[in-house]
C-alpha cells in the first residue's frame, strides 16, 4: 500500500512539475487566504446559494448539501433501508424496494440528474440510478422523498444511467456488465458475441414524472459506462461510452484494455421512437417491478411487468453509430451548445472531443472505418474535433461553465484541469485531495450552466481530516471558478461514496419545498383523521391500531388485549399541521426500526410481541417540553388469554 502511495505521490509530483509552468501568477495560498474563508462563510441564519445533490454510492442514498458552505442538510433514502425515518421498514415504503429478485434493501447509487425543460434545469425531480440490482429512482423535489423506483430488465450494472434528455422526454439506463439476454445458463467463456448490453429508455410523463419503459436497444455485449444526452442541435441523440469492446470475461484489468480505441455509441432515440410508433420492435417476455409512491395515500405500490419492447439496432436505419474513442473512455459529456461530445479515455493522457456537426457529416457521407456487429463505426479523423493535451493522467469526467470552458477531472494525477472549448488550450489546473472522480458545476451538464463553483468529489481522503480509524468518508473540494484561475475554497466530507452530483440555484427549489402534508388531503387507508376515530381492530391474529399523535401524546396511549403471537400494525397519523414538528414512534423489541412521521402523514410499523407483559412505546423526536411524557403502554397477554381489546387516553 505504501508503495502504491509512493507511486501516486511520484505521479502527482511529476504532474505538479508540469503544472508549475501554467501556474505562474495564481493567487497561491488557496484556502489559506482570508477571501476564501469569506467566500464559503454562510453566516448563522443565512442560507446557501445552491443546492447540491451528491450521490451516496454504496450508501444507496442521496445526500443534499448547500453550496458554498458544504453543509449537509439531508440524506434522502432511496435504495437503502433507513431506520432514521423508517424508510424501507414501514409498511408504506417496503414496496419501493421490491424487485424481481425479491426485497432488495440496498443498492449502489451513482448518478443524480435533475429534470430539464428546454435543456435547462427545471427542478421538478432528480433521477438516480441503482447500479447493482438495476433500478432507476425518481425523487420529488418538493418533498425531497423517493417517489418512484423502476427496475431495469435484461440489465446488469446499471451504470450509464440515469441521465435525462433535454425536455425530460426520457431517462436512460445502460448496461455496464453485458449479460445473456434473456438470462440463461451457459458457459462464461462463450461470452463473446453471445451477451448483450441493453440501453433502456424510460418515457417520463411530463406532468406526474412517472416512468414507463418505452423500449430497450439490445446492443453488442460491450460495457456501457457513462452517458449524456445531446442538446441544442444534437437534441434527439444520446451518447454512451463503452469499454471492454474486447468482450473479455476474465482478467479484465488486462483483457479489457487491449483495443486502442473503444467507442462512444451515438443513439438517435427520436428515430427509434418513430420506429416504435410505426410498430417496430420485438416484445420479449421478462419480469421487472414498477414501484410508485402516492403522496396522498402516503403509500407505495409495486406492480410486476412481464414484457419489454426490444430493438435490434441493425433494424433501425440511421439510428446508431459508433464513434471511436481512445483508451477505454469513461466520462461522456456534452457541452452546453450540444456541438462537442467529450470522451475521457481513462487510460489516456488526452481528452478526446468529437464534433456533432462532423459526426452528422460523416454519417451523411458514409465515412465509416468498419462495422461492429452491423453497426457502422465512423472514421475517427472525420469526426474528431480535437483533443486536449493536458499533461494530466487518467481523465474521467467533464463539466462546463457558461463561458465556453470545460473542466475535466484527472484521477491518476489528482487534479481538475480547465480548458477552452474549440481551442483545446489548457487554461488552469488545480490539485485535488486525492484522486478525484466526478466533479459538478451547478447546471454544468445542461444548456445553462450556472458556473461560480465546481465541486470535486474524491476517492481517497487519507490525511484531509482527523483520522477516524481505517474507514474514512470521502473528501470533496470546492473551487471558485468565477475568475480565470480556479481557487480552492474549502474541503468537506461527503457520505458514502459520491459519484456524480447535480446542483442548482437555491431559488429553484427552496420556495416550493413542502412544509407539511395537509391532513385533509391524507387518503391513507388506515389514516386516523380525528382522534374521535382512534380505535383498535382485531382480525384474527392481526391487530390494527389506528393511532394519532400530537404534542405531546398518543391517542390512545394505553392498549390492552394484545396477545403473544399477534401481528400488530401501528397505523400512526401525525396531527400536527405546523412546519418541522415530526413525531417519532418506537416500541420495545420491534424487529424493524422506528418511524419518523411528518405533520399530516400516516405511517405503519408492525410489531410482533413475543412475551407477555406491559410494554412501553414512545416518541423518539424531541417534540416539546413534554416530549419525555410522550409515551404509552401496550399490555400483552398470553396467547390463550380472554382479555378483550380496549384502548384509552386519559381515562382512569
Amino acid at each position: 500500500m505504501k508503495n502504491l502511495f509512493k507511486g501516486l505521490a511520484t505521479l502527482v509530483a511529476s504532474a505538479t512539475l508540469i503544472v508549475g509552468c501554467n501556474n505562474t501568477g495564481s493567487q497561491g495560498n488557496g484556502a489559506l487566504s482570508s477571501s476564501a474563508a469569506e467566500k464559503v462563510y454562510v453566516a448563522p441564519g443565512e442560507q446557501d446559494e445552491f443546492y447540491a445533490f451528491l450521490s451516496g454510492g454504496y450508501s444507496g442514498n442521496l445526500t443534499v448539501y448547500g453550496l458554498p458552505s458544504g453543509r449537509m442538510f439531508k440524506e434522502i433514502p432511496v435504495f437503502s433501508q433507513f431506520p432514521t425515518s423508517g424508510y424501507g421498514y414501514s409498511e408504506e415504503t417496503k414496496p419501493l424496494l421490491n424487485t424481481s429478485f425479491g426485497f432488495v434493501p440496498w443498492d449502489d447509487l451513482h448518478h443524480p440528474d435533475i429534470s430539464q425543460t428546454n435543456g435547462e434545469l427545471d427542478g421538478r425531480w432528480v433521477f438516480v440510478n441503482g447500479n447493482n440490482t438495476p433500478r432507476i429512482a425518481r425523487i420529488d423535489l418538493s418533498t425531497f422523498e423517493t417517489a418512484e423506483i423502476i427496475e431495469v430488465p435484461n440489465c446488469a450494472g446499471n451504470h450509464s444511467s440515469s441521465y435525462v434528455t433535454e425536455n425530460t422526454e426520457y431517462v436512460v439506463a445502460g448496461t455496464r456488465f453485458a449479460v445473456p439476454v434473456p438470462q440463461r445458463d451457459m458457459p462464461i467463456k462463450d461470452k463473446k458475441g453471445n451477451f448483450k448490453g441493453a440501453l433502456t429508455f424510460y418515457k417520463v410523463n411530463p406532468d406526474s414524472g412517472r416512468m414507463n419503459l418505452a423500449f430497450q436497444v439490445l446492443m453488442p455485449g460491450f460495457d456501457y459506462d457513462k452517458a449524456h444526452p445531446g442538446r441544442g442541435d444534437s437534441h434527439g441523440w444520446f451518447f454512451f461510452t463503452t469499454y471492454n469492446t474486447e468482450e473479455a470475461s476474465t482478467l479484465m484489468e488486462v483483457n479489457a484494455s487491449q483495443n486502442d480505441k473503444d467507442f462512444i455509441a451515438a443513439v438517435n432515440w427520436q428515430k427509434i421512437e418513430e420506429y416504435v410508433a410505426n410498430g417496430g420492435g420485438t416484445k420479449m417476455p421478462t419480469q421487472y417491478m414498477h414501484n410508485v409512491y402516492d403522496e396522498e395515500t402516503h403509500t407505495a405500490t409495486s406492480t410486476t411487468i412481464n414484457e419489454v419492447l426490444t430493438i435490434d439496432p441493425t433494424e433501425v436505419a440511421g439510428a446508431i453509430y459508433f464513434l471511436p474513442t481512445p483508451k477505454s473512455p469513461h466520462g461522456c459529456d456534452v457541452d452546453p451548445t450540444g456541438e462537442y461530445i467529450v470522451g475521457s479515455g481513462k487510460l489516456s493522457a488526452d481528452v478526446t472531443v468529437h464534433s456533432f456537426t462532423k459526426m452528422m457529416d460523416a454519417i451523411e457521407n458514409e465515412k465509416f472505418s468498419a462495422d461492429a456487429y452491423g453497426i457502422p463505426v465512423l472514421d475517427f479523423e472525420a469526426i474528431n474535433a480535437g483533443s486536449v493535451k493536458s499533461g494530466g493522467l487518467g481523465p474521467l469526467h467533464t463539466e462546463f461553465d457558461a463561458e465556453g470552458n470545460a473542466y475535466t477531472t484527472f484521477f491518476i494525477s489528482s487534479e481538475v484541469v480547465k480548458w477552452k472549448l474549440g481551442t483545446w488550450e489548457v487554461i488552469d489546473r488545480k490539485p485535488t485531495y486525492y484522486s478525484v472522480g466526478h466533479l459538478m458545476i451547478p447546471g454544468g451538464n445542461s444548456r445553462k450552466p450556472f458556473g461560480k463553483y465546481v465541486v470535486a468529489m474524491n476517492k481517497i481522503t487519507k490525511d484531509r481530516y482527523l483520522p477516524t480509524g481505517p474507514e474514512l468518508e470521502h473528501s470533496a473540494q470546492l473551487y471558485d471558478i468565477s475568475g480565470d484561475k480556479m481557487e480552492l475554497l474549502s474541503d468537506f466530507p461527503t457520505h458514502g461514496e459520491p459519484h456524480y452530483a447535480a446542483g442548482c440555484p437555491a431559488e429553484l427549489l427552496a420556495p416550493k419545498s413542502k412544509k407539511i402534508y395537509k391532513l385533509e388531503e391524507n387518503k391513507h387507508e388506515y389514516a386516523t383523521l380525528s382522534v374521535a376515530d382512534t380505535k383498535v381492530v382485531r382480525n384474527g391474529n392481526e391487530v390494527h391500531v389506528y393511532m394519532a399523535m400530537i404534542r405531546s401524546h398518543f391517542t390512545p396511549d394505553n392498549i390492552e388485549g394484545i396477545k403473544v403471537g399477534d401481528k400488530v400494525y401501528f397505523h400512526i397519523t401525525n396531527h400536527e399541521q405546523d412546519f418541522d414538528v415530526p413525531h417519532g414512534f418506537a416500541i420495545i423489541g420491534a424487529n424493524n426500526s422506528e418511524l419518523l412521521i411528518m405533520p399530516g402523514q400516516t405511517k405503519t410499523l408492525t410489531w410482533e410481541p413475543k412475551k407477555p407483559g406491559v410494554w412501553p412505546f414512545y416518541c423518539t423526536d424531541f417534540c416539546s417540553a413534554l416530549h419525555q411524557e410522550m409515551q404509552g403502554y401496550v399490555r400483552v397477554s398470553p396467547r390463550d388469554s380472554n382479555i378483550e381489546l380496549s384502548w384509552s387516553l386519559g381515562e382512569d
Partner: protein
Amino acid sequence: MISFAFLALSCSGGEDKKEEKSKVKLKSEPTTKKVEKKETEQLASLTVDLTNKGVGPVSSLDLPETIDQGMAAQGKDVYDRMCLACHRIGKKFIGPAPNGILERRTPEWVMNMILDPEGMVKNDPLAKKLLIEFNGSPMANQNLTEEEARAVLEYFRTLN
C-alpha cells in the same frame, strides 16, 4: 439522560414532573416553585379578561348577535379534526375546555391563540401564564385559515 430519568421515576410519581421540568429549564428551580405559588393565587384559566385582544393577526372582530349555525357546524368539523386531540368539550384535558371561553376572553384573543400560538405565548402575558398552568404543553399551530378559525369560534359560541 435515560438513567437520570429512571432515577427520578423511582423516587415518587409526583416528583418526576418536577425533575423533567428542571431538566428542560436547565435546573432553574424557582420556575417550578412559582407555578405552585400561582396556583394558590389565581389560575390563568379562570382569569376573566374581556379587554385583552392578544397579539396576532386579528385586531378587531365583531360577533353578530345570532349564532350562524352553518358556520358553527363547519367549525365543529374543523375542531374535531384539528383540536380535539388536546381540547375536549366540558373537561380539562391537555389544554382547557373551550366551553364558555367568550365569557373569559375576547373573540380576537381566541382567534389569535388559534392562529398564532407561538406568537401569543411569546407576547401575551396571559397566554404565557396559561402555558405554565398547563404543564408547559405548547399549543400546536394547526395552520388553520382565518376562515376556519372563525368557524371554530362560532362553534365555541354553541357550547355551554
